[in-house]
């Protein structure tokens, strides 16, 4: 990852950024200033969550097969579960695609090469495209890249680490990630903070 994308640990620990990751829905509205969250559209669990279409008139970087692969990978990393919709329903792939389009060339190369490497791995191990594998095969292949997550040695392993961080970082900036999954209620009109020092 180049310097252009935020390094993850420092996002959480940067003293100059008091609340940059504190984004969310206050819940307690003070006046008419803040629009109601749009998350009600997703409030009921169901298969419709996974049906979020790719944005029309894409301003992204990836071609359609790369994008299709990214959609699958993102949803494997953060799937829909009993609690909340996953990365694909949260539109993470389209968002990442737009970020990649605005990224430095080195980052764009990294995405293209990394996705290509995963595709090549599927081809070597199964002689099929990653997308056409069944879910079990996809998970097994990804798990083989996650084994050395803390100390990756191959390009594919390094890309998995990079990809995973990009996906969760993007997911927890979406409405679904912030409001439905984390149930974060900050960044709004809120008095609860006044209780933080009470025992």
């Amino acid at each position, binding site marked *: 990852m180049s310097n252009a994308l*935020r390094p993850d640990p420092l996002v959480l620990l940067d*003293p100059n950024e008091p609340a940059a990751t504190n984004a969310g829905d206050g819940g307690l509205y003070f006046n008419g200033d803040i629009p109601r969250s749009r998350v009600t559209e997703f409030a009921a669990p169901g298969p419709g969550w996974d049906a979020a279409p790719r944005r029309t008139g894409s301003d992204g970087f990836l071609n359609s097969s790369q994008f299709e692969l990214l959609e699958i990978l993102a949803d494997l990393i953060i799937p829909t579960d009993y609690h909340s919709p996953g990365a694909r329903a949260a539109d993470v792939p389209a968002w990442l695609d737009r970020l990649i389009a605005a990224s430095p060339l080195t980052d764009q190369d990294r995405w293209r090469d990394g996705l290509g490497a995963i595709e090549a791995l599927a081809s070597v191990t199964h002689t099929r495209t990653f997308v056409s594998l069944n879910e079990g095969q996809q998970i097994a292949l990804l798990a083989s890249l996650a084994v050395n997550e803390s100390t990756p040695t191959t390009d594919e392993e390094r890309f998995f680490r990079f990809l995973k961080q990009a996906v969760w970082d993007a997911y927890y900036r979406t409405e679904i990630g912030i409001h439905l999954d984390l149930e974060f209620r900050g960044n709004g009109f*809120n008095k609860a903070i006044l209780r933080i020092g009470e025992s």
Partner: protein
Amino acid sequence: MIDAIVIGSGATGGWAAKTLTEAGHRVLMLESGGPIEPHKHYAHHTRPYDLKYGNRFDNEWLQRERRPIQSKVYACDEYGAHFFIDDIDNPYSTPEGKPYVWIRGGLIGGRSNVWGRQSLRMSDFELKSASLDGYGEDWPISYSDLVQAYDEVERFAGISGSAEALPQLPDGQFLPPMPMTRGELALKSAVEKHWPDRRVIISRSAVLTENHNGRAECHYCGNCARGCRTHSFFSSVGSTIPAALATKRLEIRTNAHVSSVDFDATLGRATGVTYVDKATGRSVRVHARTVVLAASTIASTRILLNSRSTAFPNGLGNSTGNLGKYLHGHVHSIWITGIAPGAMDSFSIPEGDRPCQIYIPRFQNLGKQDRPYLRGFGIEGAVRRKMLPSGIASIPGFGKGFKQAVRNAVKTDPPIFFLTAFGEMLARADNVVTLRDDMRDRWGLAVPHITCTYGANEHLMSADILTIIKEIANVAGFDVRTERSQPGTPGLCIHEVVPLEWGPPRATRCSIGGTCSGTRLTCLWWTVRAMSHRACRTQR
């Protein structure tokens, strides 16, 4: 007919306009930047998904085309870049290998729209530091001269804080203090027990903890640096400018880029101001008996240096040639961060953020020289949770298990902490703002050349800051994970000061001491005092 021209609409400009208009003067305020629309520009409740890139890019990359310098400051990000000037249209220069970051506001309200809100009084340890340690000059005033106007400023602006009866940090007229988190209370207890001369207190912050002068109390969303629509922290846009406008004696002109103060040698006084109307590119002259320079430290210096006449060929207020010298700010950005174990239950879920930090007032070189450098620093920090768990980057795996582990960690991961410091920079004659006639901004005005470096004293202090904040973290039982040992680029703390001369010329007059407390409150004090004085005199 205008009685006074105020150049600049930030913290001091707003206060000058308020004081003068309330005393019956008709005031014209000139702002180089554009108008502000709080409902459009203030982004305190904007979420990442409301932004094109979710604030995910490094600021400097995202703003590389128009704001390569401004984007070095935390607030010039995807949420708030519009608060800052365009660096390409507004250049300045620095010597090779000596960077200086000059952060400038680009809208009505200036940097008060997004400032850090820490509001500390200066004490005689700072005002009279030359008498105490022999370096530089004392301020020509002492704390007792400041008390009344400090009171007035605090009562109007609304400063929350706790009274502590510390000689190095005088108490003020405070609104109720904000609470500390449990982790901060633990830090306080450990530090004060281990070092009886160190106190851990809540910051004195220009954020309202109750409704005050028609402004709403803070609602703790935690995003002050993006502007506050409820005006719960002090800014000129939220308080002093509305007060001045209410008198119906204030006119504000935006895009009025001042080039010089006009001086009439026959009358022996300033007669007005010349500015470039950015919309038309035309030069405009306005007349008034009083001119107030509140354009920020370096911009006001530029205007004075550029106010050249036969009587004052080197600019106004510069007959000794000292104008622009002794530029200083703070030693800043030495920090540690990490995990505060044992403070796990500091609060159950982060629901926003407290808009202030904790503060450890200066304890070095007070009354006796006990450190290998002059002057001192105050420590700031916090222990808190954020939306994402502190250990998210090390949660292994993927899929449903990962997702559940993140949710669990939100409830169980310990909070993070950080400690940093702002230290006094010695005022040195070779840290100087000059004017470059060979380099012009988009509107044809000569731009500043800024030379500012840290000296040996600042480097000795920097090393001590890192040692001391690590000791403090250690005593509190915190786990340090990251650190920064070098001070940040001069200027980036946005606390710059250039002394001006007053009274009869004297060679060393400008080398007054800096301050570890910061000068925001003192700037406002100075504005109140000077403006009240000016208002009285003009009436007579």
